[in-house]
């Protein structure tokens, strides 16, 4: 197929800037991320944080959608075990994540591209550290360049990605 539209040029050269979608829970990791800001800790600019109330809201479909839409990696941040603002949401996240990782193993997605970290509200420095590590890790791996799934030829296929071209 010749209709590849994913960024290819950067592969294997130093110009590659990983695109990382981060899902952070409101109470711990998003707050820590704000704290990193308040403390003026600079870190790699490659993450794009999407706030959810709890890591329990995060599910494989969101991660898969991010990768499908061009993310080279996905970072998930939640409260430490035992610290969840909603008691146990982070455990649900962890279980889904572990199963998803096994799926990724079979599908050839490098395990380093998806990372789950428990980051407490006070751990601004951990946001900095984890972000930097993750960006470096993914930079080493190079762009994800998923095989392009041919777009379904109809207005609403059962498995269509959400909002495909929705606002374009």
């Amino acid at each position, binding site marked *: 197929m010749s209709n590849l539209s994913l960024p290819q040029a950067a592969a294997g050269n130093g110009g590659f800037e990983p695109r990382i979608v981060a899902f952070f829970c409101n109470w711990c990791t998003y707050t820590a991320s704000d704290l990193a800001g308040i403390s003026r800790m600079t870190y790699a600019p490659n993450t794009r944080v999407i706030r959810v109330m709890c890591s329990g809201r995060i599910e494989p479909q969101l991660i*898969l959608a991010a990768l499908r839409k061009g993310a080279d990696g996905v970072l998930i941040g939640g409260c430490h075990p035992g610290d969840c603002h909603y008691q146990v949401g982070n455990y649900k996240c*962890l279980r889904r994540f572990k199963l998803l990782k096994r*799926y990724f193993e*079979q599908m050839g997605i490098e395990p380093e591209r998806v990372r789950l970290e428990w980051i407490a509200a006070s751990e601004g420095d951990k946001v900095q550290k984890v972000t930097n590590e993750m960006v470096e890790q993914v930079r080493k791996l190079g762009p994800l360049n*998923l*095989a392009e799934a041919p777009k379904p*030829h109809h207005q*609403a296929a059962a*498995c269509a990605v959400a909002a495909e071209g929705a606002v374009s």
Partner: protein
Amino acid sequence: MSKPKAGFYWCASCGGCEESVVDLAEDLIAVVTAIDFVFFPCAMDFKREDVEAMKDGEIAVCFINGAVRSSEQFEMVELLRKKSQLIIAYGSCAHMGGIPGLANLYDLESILKRVYTETESTDNPSGTRPLPQTTVPGGKLTLPTLDESVKSLDQVIPVDYYIPGCPPPTPLLKAAVEAVLSGKLPPKGTVLAPDIALCKECPRIDSKPEDLAIKAFKRPHEIDIDPEKCLLAQGLLCLGPGTRSGCGAACIKGNMPCTGCLGPVSRVHDHGGATMAALASLLEATEEDQIVSAIESVPDPVGTFYRYGVPGSLLFRKHTTSGNGGH
């Protein structure tokens, strides 16, 4: 007025879809009385030239089953699209890639190598492979080529409706034919099956506990299956909660868990992703190592959660570092 013309074509499929037509039993007579089949390679002796000879849009409705991989299949579905007013993707393979879609876990070369060189029953010391063109005395022979990836039908041509299932349940087929005949069709792109998950029609739903916590997943041969009780409650990986209804819970009635052949409901973007989320959430484990070992009890996540839909899933095929998989 003449009867509407219909076609029925197969791509990469097992023949089960055709069987499902036969399963219409006495209703089949009503169907053939109402419809004029003009192309049905499995059952009737029409040729490609016959289709090519038709006017564009001459076929009122064409049912196509099977996934698409070979150049022949590409050509045929494109041809049928041109000649048909309505294309209905029929069965899991056309709908989502189906069982043949699991081939997307391998690259083409390794499949060919396995088939033509490595299988235990292969005796092919010279490593001969089928070629697109072979010159033999008397002329040139051609064979279709294979694409790098398996695709669902809508990844190749525009599809108007889907009838899901492996094979599609006959009531769905019957309802679809009636809708086509009566012209009372839903918006294009609709999957012609209820848009609610299977638990809705599962006879065992009342036996499912409201505090389900799964210790580890079992496989059917590992336990003595209680014929009354919710299968998930017995630890079996039943995909019913995330799979479209419309089959009348046939497998569950046969004391086997749902494997997801009807695909997801319309609100779900990735069938496997959604069912993984649901089932993993229900695990009992809280410690990381417990979770890992509970999840180890799923021997083959792709084969379990994406059995019928690797091509139709968000990842589409196995990722290789070279990127696009060359399709």
